[in-house]
């Protein structure tokens, strides 16, 4: 800890804290524009300069580490004058005319800074220079005329998303923000995560979907969770007049720390599927709108006689994108007294069954994504994380320039090839041989961190080379890199888990122990799971394969999920199909009864992400009039069939051992 004095106030902060942060802790506001708490301090805008005793010139407080005994002033006349001058310079530099700017009136940090300094005008003549506007991007516009060159976007693109698309071209007053080698943003390497828009302090990067629909000052953001995938990013939902205006990453989010990917930020904004607004029942071959009473009656009438028939009765399937409340109710309804033949999820346990079966015996062994923050090597097996779980991918990509190495082994060619230090292609189905081979090489070369007896190492290596089709030298290289790392992390995806091999998972676990990825204090072994509630579905045991075998009816709870063509093909074989969904799809077209339900934003619910965080999504929108909560619909069906169900999901998910610590 160091003690310093700011404006006469004694403050104690941990060593390495900047003066700007130290001041904030003490409740002293120092205006700034280029600083952002998630980004490396830059010291460019010069708004935060302070006077420090012993220094000839004032110093930017955002980059200045507090030192013992430092005496700082932030409100001298010279500093106040300088701040106004700097703001005048910024305002007059480019087109910073407020009345026709989207962010004016609350969202603009430049304008807010001027208010803070009580400026009624800027005394300098504007520059009237024209700078390029780039509107080629599908989601946002880059207007260099509104830019104050704080480089937050450039830093966010590189430091947070690890993408390095944005940079600065030219020098001095001619500086502009560009993508790649000055190509249109829409044709650049941009991965459309929108982090740059979220950090932009002015209207230089503005969002198309939320343009002129109101700003944060008028709309209270609601904290919620994204259901795009199993990462479980925390989001702020901006809603106005029952309409989603914008989605922003929550900087306090425990998993994403403010980041979102294209899907999380923009998919819900560009939803184009047709909403189902009334219960439908097939009559004379046609789906016709009916009352809820009639629809639920039809379902209960059809299903009730099939209760208890564990063979030719009902097959029930639920989406892993549904909240755990719904999944739990679904399980209670069909797996309980009803004894349906199949009760599973749309993932059929492809991403979780083997992992949870191993956990059943071993207890929790998976870690938290946070381990990536300190990892010096990441091994990705059977997963294209950068594309399948983009925000987790950012955590990897942004660590690469800081020296983390990446090894990818995948049956599919090209996976992570551009990013990885070593990308190998193994034969499909050879993963067990691969993992055993890697272990054998490490043991043979004496590189293991923990003792492991492998008497048949030579044979295992031979077998690995034969089965994987990877030359020995490459396998050895991968093994040495893995064993040489101080804090390695192993991530594996569907390519591994879909094999449903407990042996493979156990083998991976022992590799992780051998190389020190899993140690007493550290768990650097994580499976990526599938959709938002894969983990919850697994905890509820909804992980059996879905194979229809003469069942008379199928109940499909889809919610607002997308339905794959493969699933549709299998489901429509059923003689009677009940679909509970929010949007029209090929599946609902084929259904006998369609029950319209809420989307993720229209009902409260919990989601358990890939590393076991139980997070709540809030109800922020009111759905169309005839649409009902997906949990309530299941409850009513149960009631109509006279089968009482408990509604205690928290209890339900504790019935199975989790593969990771839940929190």
């Amino acid at each position, binding site marked *: 800890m160091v003690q310093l004095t700011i404006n006469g106030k004694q403050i104690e902060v941990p060593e390495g804290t900047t003066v700007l942060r130290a001041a904030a802790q003490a409740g002293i506001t120092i205006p700034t524009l280029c600083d952002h708490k998630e980004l490396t301090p830059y010291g460019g805008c010069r708004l935060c300069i302070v006077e420090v005793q012993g220094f000839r010139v004032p110093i930017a407080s955002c980059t200045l580490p507090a030192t013992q005994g430092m005496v700082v002033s932030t409100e001298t006349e010279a500093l106040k004058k300088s701040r106004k001058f700097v703001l005048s310079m910024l305002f007059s530099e480019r087109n910073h*005319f*407020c009345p026709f700017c989207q962010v004016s009136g609350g969202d603009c940090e430049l304008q807010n800074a001027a*208010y803070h300094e009580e400026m009624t*005008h800027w005394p300098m003549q504007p520059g009237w220079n024209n700078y390029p506007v780039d509107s080629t991007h599908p989601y946002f516009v880059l207007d260099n005329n509104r830019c104050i060159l704080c480089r937050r976007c450039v830093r966010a693109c590189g430091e947070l998303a690890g993408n390095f698309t944005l940079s600065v071209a030219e020098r001095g007053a001619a500086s502009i923000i560009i993508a790649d080698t000055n190509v249109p943003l829409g044709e650049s390497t941009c991965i459309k995560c929108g982090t740059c828009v979220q950090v932009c302090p002015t209207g230089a990067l503005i969002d198309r979907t939320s343009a002129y629909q109101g700003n944060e000052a008028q709309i209270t953001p609601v904290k919620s969770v994204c259901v795009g995938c199993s990462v479980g990013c925390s989001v702020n939902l901006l809603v106005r007049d029952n309409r989603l205006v914008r989605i922003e990453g929550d900087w306090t989010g425990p998993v994403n720390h403010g980041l979102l990917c294209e899907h999380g930020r923009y998919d819900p904004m560009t939803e184009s599927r047709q909403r189902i607004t009334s219960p439908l029942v097939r009559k004379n071959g046609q789906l016709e709108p009916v009352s809820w009473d009639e629809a639920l009656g039809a379902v209960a009438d059809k299903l009730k006689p099939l209760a208890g028939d564990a063979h030719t009765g009902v097959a029930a399937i639920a989406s892993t994108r549904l909240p755990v409340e719904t999944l739990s109710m679904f399980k209670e309804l069909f797996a309980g007294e009803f004894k349906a033949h199949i009760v599973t999820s749309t993932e059929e346990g492809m991403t979780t069954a083997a992992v949870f079966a191993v956990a059943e015996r071993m207890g929790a062994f998976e870690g938290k994504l946070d381990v990536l923050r300190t990892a010096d090597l990441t091994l990705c097996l059977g997963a294209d994380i950068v594309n399948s779980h983009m925000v987790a991918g950012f955590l990897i990509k942004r660590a690469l320039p800081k020296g983390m190495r990446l090894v990818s082994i995948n049956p599919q060619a090209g996976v992570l090839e551009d990013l990885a230090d070593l990308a190998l292609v193994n034969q499909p189905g050879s993963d067990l041989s691969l993992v055993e081979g890697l272990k054998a090489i490490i043991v043979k070369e004496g590189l293991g961190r923990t003792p492991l007896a492998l008497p048949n190492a030579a044979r295992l290596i031979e077998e690995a080379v034969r089965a994987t089709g990877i030359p020995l030298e490459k396998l050895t290289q991968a093994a040495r890199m893995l064993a040489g790392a101080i804090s390695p992390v192993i991530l594996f995806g569907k390519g591994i888990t879909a094999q449903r091999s407990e042996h493979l998972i156990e083998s991976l676990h022992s590799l992780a122990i051998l190389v020190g990825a899993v140690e007493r204090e550290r768990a650097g072994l994580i499976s990526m799971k599938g959709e938002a509630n894969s983990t919850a579905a697994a905890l509820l045991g909804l992980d059996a394969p879905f194979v229809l075998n003469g069942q008379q009816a199928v109940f499909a709870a889809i919610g607002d999920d997308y339905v794959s063509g493969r699933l549709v093909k299998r489901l429509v074989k059923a003689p009677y199909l009940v679909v509970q969904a929010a949007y029209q799809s090929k599946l609902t077209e084929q259904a006998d009864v369609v029950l319209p339900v809420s989307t993720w934003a229209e009902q409260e619910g919990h989601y358990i992400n890939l590393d076991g965080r139980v997070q709540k999504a809030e109800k922020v929108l009111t759905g169309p009039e005839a649409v009902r909560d997906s949990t309530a619909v299941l409850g009513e069906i149960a009631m109509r069939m006279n089968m009482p169900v408990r509604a205690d999901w928290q209890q339900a998910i504790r019935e199975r051992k989790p593969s990771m610590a839940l929190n």
Partner: protein
Amino acid sequence: MAKPKIASDWMCGCAGCHMSLLDMDERILKVAELADLRATPITDLKEPDASGVDVGVLEGGINNTANEEVAHKMRARAKILVALGDCAVFGGVPAMRNFCGVEAALKRAYVEAESNEPGCEIPNDPELATMTQTRAIHEVVPVDYNVPGCPPDADVIFYVLAELAQGRKPELKDDLLHWH
């Protein structure tokens, strides 16, 4: 003691700031009580008293030689000059044409616009004032108080006029300070 005299005029603006002034509703009576409202676009007197006024209010930026005259005259005759609204304070919307230049703006409006008949020309009657770059008032004559806003709220205008009429210095901050 005689009531202080207030005069106002508009230049390159949209009259919105004067509309906002009227938005103060019955409080305008209070202003009238405190001050003597002289030449304004509302009262329809054409120019501020030659003998001078205490407070001169100008709306709009300066974008031609006629506006320059208005500004200079108001400055010369008013003890205190108030720039009212974003156009007067910053140049505002009309100042956007500075990014392309007067010539290009006139050409676009009078020659190239889709609604123009073929053969249209930029008006060149010598009686017309000469177009210039659009400027904030403080770039042409010294301004005592800048009151930003597009338009400034009636509350803000009332506050400023009432303070000035009572010989106090208005201070714009917090809720009274808005640039848009």
